[in-house]
């Protein structure tokens, strides 16, 4: 979609300082501008979670399909409304019955049959092209209440566990194997393509092919309980070589705490029994109930895209979990003093 040069620039920009909205969406907007009602839809060109702001093969095809259908719909609506106004307001006198009968046959039978046959023969083949297989990398995503357990599996069989964030190589087609823990969720990255439900007891499969690098947002689309609204995730699409490098890091053990505060935090982490639910690889913490925290400090967000990853926000999250996310399973550690929470935050922040 975009020029290669631009993609390269994006690829070398460090993640942390990459502006979230500087992706050029001129192509989508230009197409959009040609359409009626686009004045209102121009707003759609800003979001990181927008259907009409495609950054993947599938989303781009769908956006094009939509804009075509929208144009047709606007014309048809104007025709029907115009005809109605004409016969009720502008020309209220009797018109011949023959015209009326041919309107029923023409407008009700022939015209829609023709239009729908065209639309279906264009759109039905799109389905299989959106369901073609992946290029090798498989991302297992399991919907939990209310976060995402993410496991990367390379064709060589290497695995890396992460949570609440999906990173993908741009220009390659990645396969997602989707499952759910207790209730149904739906996995959706609007900028890249359509959604697929995650159903307990089943494994559903979808593939996505990011066309450019950038930072996007995905969100659960199937109502999944109290905090359904707070179940989102960050998506970063990366240049393939950077992705491979990142994946190697993601599979590695956690770095030891580097500062005094972080070491105190690590002590609190151990003392409070956080390891019963969370894994920090390379430490005794091996819990599987909650998100893997081995590299939590290097993620774009915590709490399923709820808060940024700073020591202060981590402390806030641990101390006020239930407040921030209604009905969440993690207990809220509000008995810890602010200083202790901050130390804990510093430890987690340091888990790059």
């Amino acid at each position, binding site marked *: 979609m975009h020029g290669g040069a631009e993609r390269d620039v994006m690829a070398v920009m460090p993640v942390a300082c990459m502006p979230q909205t500087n992706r050029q969406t001129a192509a989508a907007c230009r197409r959009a501008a040609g359409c009626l009602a686009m004045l209102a839809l121009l707003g759609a060109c800003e979001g990181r*979670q927008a259907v009409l702001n495609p950054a993947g093969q599938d989303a781009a095809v769908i956006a094009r399909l939509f804009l075509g259908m929208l144009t047709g*719909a606007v014309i*048809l609506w104007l025709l029907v*409304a115009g005809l109605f106004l004409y016969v009720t307001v502008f020309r209220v006198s009797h018109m011949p019955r023959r015209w009326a009968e041919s309107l029923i046959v023409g407008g009700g039978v022939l015209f829609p049959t023709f239009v729908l046959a065209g639309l279906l023969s264009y759109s039905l083949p799109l389905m299989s092209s959106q369901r073609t297989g992946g290029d090798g990398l498989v991302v297992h995503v399991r919907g939990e209440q209310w976060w995402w357990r993410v496991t990367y599996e390379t064709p060589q069989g290497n695995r890396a566990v992460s949570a609440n964030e999906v990173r993908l190589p741009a220009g390659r087609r990645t396969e997602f194997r989707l499952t759910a823990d207790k*209730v*149904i969720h739906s996995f959706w990255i609007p900028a890249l393509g359509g959604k697929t439900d995650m159903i307990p007891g089943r494994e559903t499969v979808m593939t996505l092919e990011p066309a450019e690098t950038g930072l996007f947002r995905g969100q659960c*689309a199937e109502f999944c309980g109290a905090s359904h609204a707070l179940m989102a995730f960050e998506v970063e699409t990366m240049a393939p070589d950077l992705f491979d490098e990142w994946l190697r890091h993601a599979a590695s053990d956690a770095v030891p705490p580097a500062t005094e505060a972080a070491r105190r935090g690590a002590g609190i982490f151990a003392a409070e029994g956080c390891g019963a639910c969370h894994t920090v690889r390379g430490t005794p913490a091996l819990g599987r109930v909650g998100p893997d925290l081995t590299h939590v400090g290097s993620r774009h967000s915590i709490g399923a895209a709820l808060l940024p990853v700073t020591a202060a926000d981590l402390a806030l999250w641990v101390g006020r979990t239930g407040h921030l996310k209604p*009905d969440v399973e993690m207990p809220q550690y509000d008995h810890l003093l602010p200083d202790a929470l901050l130390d804990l935050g510093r430890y987690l922040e340091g888990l790059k």
Partner: protein
Amino acid sequence: MTASAPRAPRPEGPYPPTDEMLARPVPSDLQEAQADRLRAAWRTPQGWRYWSAVNNSEVGVWYTLTAFGFMLIAGLLALAMRVQLAVPQNGVLDADRFNQFFTMHGSAMMFLFAVPMFEAFSILILPAFLGARDMPFPRLSAYGYWCFLIGGTFVMGSLLFDAAPKAGWFMYPPLATRELGIGSDIWLLGLSFIEIASIAAAVELIVGVLKCRPPGMRVNIMPLYAWYVLVVGGMILFAFPPLIAGDFLFELQRSFDWPFFDPERGGDPLLWQHLFWIFGHPEVYIVFLPSIAIAAMIVPTVARRPVVGYSWIVLSAVGTGFLSFGLWVHHMFTTGLPTISLGFFSAASEAVVIPTGIQLFAFVATLMVGRVRMSLPMLWIAGALAIFVAGGLTGVMLAIVPFNWQVHDTYFIVAHLHYTLFGGMVFPVIGGVYYFYPFIAKRLLSERLGRIAFWLIFVGFNVTFFPMHIAGLEGMPRRVFTYPAASGWGLWNMISTLGAFVIAGGFAVFVYDLLRSMGRRGDIPRNPWQAGTLEWSHDIPEEAWGARSIPYVTTRYPLWDQEGIVARMDAGRYYLPDAETGARETLVTSVIDARPLHIQTVTGPTWITHLAAIFTGGAFIFPTFHLYAPAVVCAVLAVAAIIWWLWTATARPPEIPVRDAGLDLRLPTYASGVNAPGWWGMWITMLGDATAFASLVFGFFFYWTARPDFPPAGAEHAAPFWVAAAALAFGLSWAATLVARQSNRAGSRGRAMALLAAGFVLTVAGCGAALLSVLALDPAAHVYPAILWALAVWLCAHGGVGAIMQGYCIAGLVAGKLTPDYDADLCNVTLYWHFLALTALTACAVLGIAPRLLA
């Protein structure tokens, strides 16, 4: 199938009436005496006894107002949600309350407003369209209404206790099966209760259209509204049972932990989605078609021309009804189904555009050939058209699978569904209120306030819902109680919220107009819109008898095309101008060509329907709180109340077997078998019941196709001996009932009683054998024993009803209520038994044979 008894009297006398007969004057003193007797028979009870009324004009009004009240409450919930979503990260409603509100908004709009509103409105006006005095089973409408009021109040009331359902109106398991608290149980039991009332009303409406048309009104000239009632009634009959079957399984899981939707024990959450949407998609058309029906009455009136393309419209309505059952998977495009199924359902979903388009263009065509008068009701229809067409066009987009993958479960869907349902249902219904208000209340609503309400609601609607398309395309999912500021959705949500208040303002004006005119007595002409259909022949001021005499109808627009028809109706020149016996009567005619068949006595005011409704309510409401003993007591009392009501008021042998029905026609006063409305009621009810059972059987085979461990290896099966015994017992009991009917007709009362008694014993034995066959299996262990248990329980419940019916017939024979000539009850019971035998044999085959073949 079941012809009337051989010695039953037949209609005698001239039919159809000649012009000369119709021109004969009726002496004025006779006219007055007849009118007085009719007035006495149809008098509405006064004072507190008013609430014992069962007449369609009373029950219909209560029903309509109650449904409208529930709509206003559901609308207020929406307003509260809009306030919460007006700005990002708002704290007006917390997550829990928001989830209760959106669940109840959807559930109430669907189950407490849209469907009941159609039935209420139809109960109110259908008899008038047909020149009938009342619906065929007035007490059934009253019972349905009281069930609806109790159930609706119970479900809605849960909001006040912070205990309302909160898993969405679609109640997807495992979320809804795991949900703590009683919210989900309230949804399942409270709404099942209402669904049963809805089916009862649908049965009554279908029978009303088929059997209570005026003489001469062949099916091809009946008002289009009646056609839509037939189609929608049929859809309710086939769409609600799968949901009831689903509710049955769901509640068994919630109450007794039978794992139908639990994947860890072989269950499958997707079964619920299939059952729910097999109901849920026809539901959309159940909501939408009645509004088309209202438009089909308003449009010819404002065009002052008969509708163009009557046959096209009828065929399209029927076609929409059929097609709507083949679209449900388009609610499940994202569940990972194979591409081939998705393609099929995508094409089927698009195909429904064609019948819908035909109906819309037929109305435009009618307006074309007419000279349109843009009256207030027509303004609402015009608004409906503008909005609905937009919703239809987004619907065409949504049926395209890849696009659906993107916007499914986003605000784009919220916008689409409100464009179709608000535009396709609420606007025409309000138009219908303005149009029919002079018929119902004998007054006109204010033209000025009506236009203000229209523009407020029309503009408010578009301001509210148009931006939701954009919010959805920007990625905003549905059913979120909050959203981050960085999403950029704030602006669109703020606009939507402002629009919602404009809609609320419009409704306030509309409600004010309704209330304002309540106390006033208007002075309006009899047919203020100069319409052509029979309902506008009703007297002003209103008389409770409906039609003074039941006309002979030969045209689609009798008030336009049959000169002098109203004057003749008023004079009592037509059929049933009198109430000689003091009983309420209406005319029953044949299904296709509406030949008069007999005079049907219809039931009058009573309190038994209230008792029956209260106890039925108890039977559904107590299990919500896991109070099973009181529930069983209530169920027994409900059955007792219904038996008492049937025994005292239905199918009593007449004192005078043949009576003068007017115009020299002498008609029987009793019918059994195919001629009797009760037989049709039973037949139609059992079609619905068989559909629910078929849904359970579908569940069994769904597990088999969808789950590799069904039946699990080495699983214990149902005990073959007891399965065979159950099949044999039910088969013999069916044969005994069948032979009992013939023996009774042949005059052998004793043999009939003996056979029915034997049947009763066999039925009880069959139920016992069915339970014994699964007794050794643990239904909580795996879905396989659970579904076998569910089938056995279903069979036993139906066997229980079958045994009660056999007992009822024995009692009837003893008491002389059933005689060789008057055997309607026995005919209806035999019909029930045909279905029960089919149910029993199928259930036994699935219990005993299928697992061994499949394993």
